[in-house]
């Protein structure tokens, strides 16, 4: 209950971050993700095309941690903002080995890029 309330408060605050997101800058920041992720195919991390609006742990054929699979999270600007700030604190037991992006503008820009790329046919052509 407490955890749910805390998440609700964080989500309420998180729109503050999205006031001037720059998806072009986010595209450059996406380089931080490309050790494990790609937009259009699965690597050691799942693909990011279609991420916005997708339930966590739901890419077919990708093997997720139980924590991710059972999280009931729906990925959105808000949920990504909270998750990316500190993935392991937000979702203990998930396997993403990443300390997080502490800078609010960096997160906002990166998420703006993910939103722009989400269903872009040029970047999200199925292999």
């Amino acid at each position: 209950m407490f955890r749910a309330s805390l998440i609700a408060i964080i989500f309420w605050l998180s729109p503050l971050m999205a006031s001037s997101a720059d998806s072009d800058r986010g595209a450059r920041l996406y380089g931080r993700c490309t050790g494990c992720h790609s937009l259009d195919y699965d690597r050691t991390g799942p693909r990011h095309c279609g991420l916005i609006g997708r339930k966590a742990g739901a890419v077919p054929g990708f093997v997720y941690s139980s924590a991710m699979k059972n999280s009931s999270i729906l990925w959105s600007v808000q949920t990504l903002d909270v998750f990316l700030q500190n993935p392991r604190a937000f979702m203990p037991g998930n396997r993403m080995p990443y300390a997080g992006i502490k800078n609010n503008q960096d997160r906002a820009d990166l998420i703006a890029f993910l939103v722009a790329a989400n269903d872009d046919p040029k970047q999200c052509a199925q292999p």
Partner: protein
Amino acid sequence: MTKKNASTFIPKFVDLSRRSMLSLGGKGILSAGAVALLSGSETLALVNPASADEMNEDVQFLNAALGAEQEAIAAYQVGAESGLLGKSALDLAVQFQGHHKEHATLLAKTVTQLGGKAVAPKMDYHFPVEKLKTEADVLGFAASLEKGAVSAYLGAVPLFTNRDLAQAAASILGDEAMHWAVLRSALGQNPVPSAFMS
């Protein structure tokens, strides 16, 4: 310019008070645990004891790194067999693939030493081979993987509970950053385009 004590430049996570510090030719210092890890010694062990949960997390991080190294090995194999690389580029690809093999071997061994099960390489990997038509394409693809690997290690290093493992991961990060710089140089690009990595 203010003259700084040499210890200013030693990463904060290195405990200077420990007896296990070893000097490396006066140019750097690694703890005994990190040296054990980097040399593949059977005696790694847990110079910094951690709880089972914390160790499990470290094993997770090591396995994630191992998966990425296995992918890099496969990617360099694709590049080497593409027929697009001249001799000097092929020599680089083979050398760097060899480094990734060394990383993978060590990571797998360490996972096992810590009681985990090392992930196996995938049966097949997806690479954008349809976009690789020239030597520059292959080198550019390799450079992008190396840059991604640097970022991945950079994001993972702070997470290790065992600081010796963190230091060892940082050592691999340094190697992959050198790969990135050399590949950029081979492409005629500025090998070190910025003062910081992210």
